[in-house]
């Protein structure tokens, strides 16, 4: 198994030991939703109440914390990166609760919905407009899942970030 797979398996084991069930978000969640592309983004949505114990556990595993706020944290360990978003607002808590569980080569993993993933990708882009990869991911997810997406939920996210017209633009 690759180093990446080992890293994710180790993280899942750490989350389990700390009694929290995160959901996969970010680039690897995009992969899980059928858009297979190269990425080493290991991003999880974690309940905010678990932030302190997960932080301590990651330091124990040898990660260095680059940044940490009430919303997000970035960790690195040599060439490994791991990012966390904390679910403390109602929308993120709902998305975390509704994440679906899936068997993967690294073990059972909870994965955010496509709609939620698009919402988080939009948040990433709004926070840093140089992250055009986020828009590319949204386009690809919309293209593949368009017929099954909850458009009302998506409109809610685009309105939340004052980008209602961007959804129509991305839908083409």
């Amino acid at each position, binding site marked *: 198994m690759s180093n990446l797979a080992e890293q994710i398996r180790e993280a899942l084991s750490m989350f389990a030991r700390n009694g929290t069930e995160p959901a996969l978000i970010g680039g690897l969640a995009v992969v899980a939703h059928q858009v297979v*592309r*190269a990425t080493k983004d290991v991003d999880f949505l974690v309940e905010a109440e678990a932030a302190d114990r997960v932080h301590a556990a990651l330091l124990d595993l040898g990660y260095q914390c680059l940044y940490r706020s009430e919303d997000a944290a970035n960790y690195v360990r040599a060439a490994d990166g791991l990012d966390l978003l904390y679910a403390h607002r109602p*929308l993120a808590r709902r998305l975390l609760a509704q994440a679906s569980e899936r068997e993967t080569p690294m073990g059972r993993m909870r994965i955010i919905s496509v709609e939620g993933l698009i919402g988080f990708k939009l948040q990433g882009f709004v926070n840093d407009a140089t992250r055009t990869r986020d828009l590319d991911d949204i386009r690809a997810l919309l*293209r593949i899942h368009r017929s099954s997406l909850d458009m009302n939920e998506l409109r809610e996210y685009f309105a939340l970030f004052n980008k209602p017209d961007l959804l129509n633009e991305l839908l083409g």
Partner: protein
Amino acid sequence: MNFSDNTDTNAVLVREAGVPFQLPLGNASGVDPIAEWLSLMEVVQMLCPVWPVRDRPMQGDHWRL
């Protein structure tokens, strides 16, 4: 695997052979996208052993989700 027969804008991915493909939806195909990704990353990491890691923290003040 459901290979596309052209290179139009519906292609989602260009794999190592330059052949665009999109994984079929659902589980009926038996193709696991994460297993496909692991396979892809084995190749990527052989070609590019040093992968850029994050060198700056997350940006922005718009945390609304």
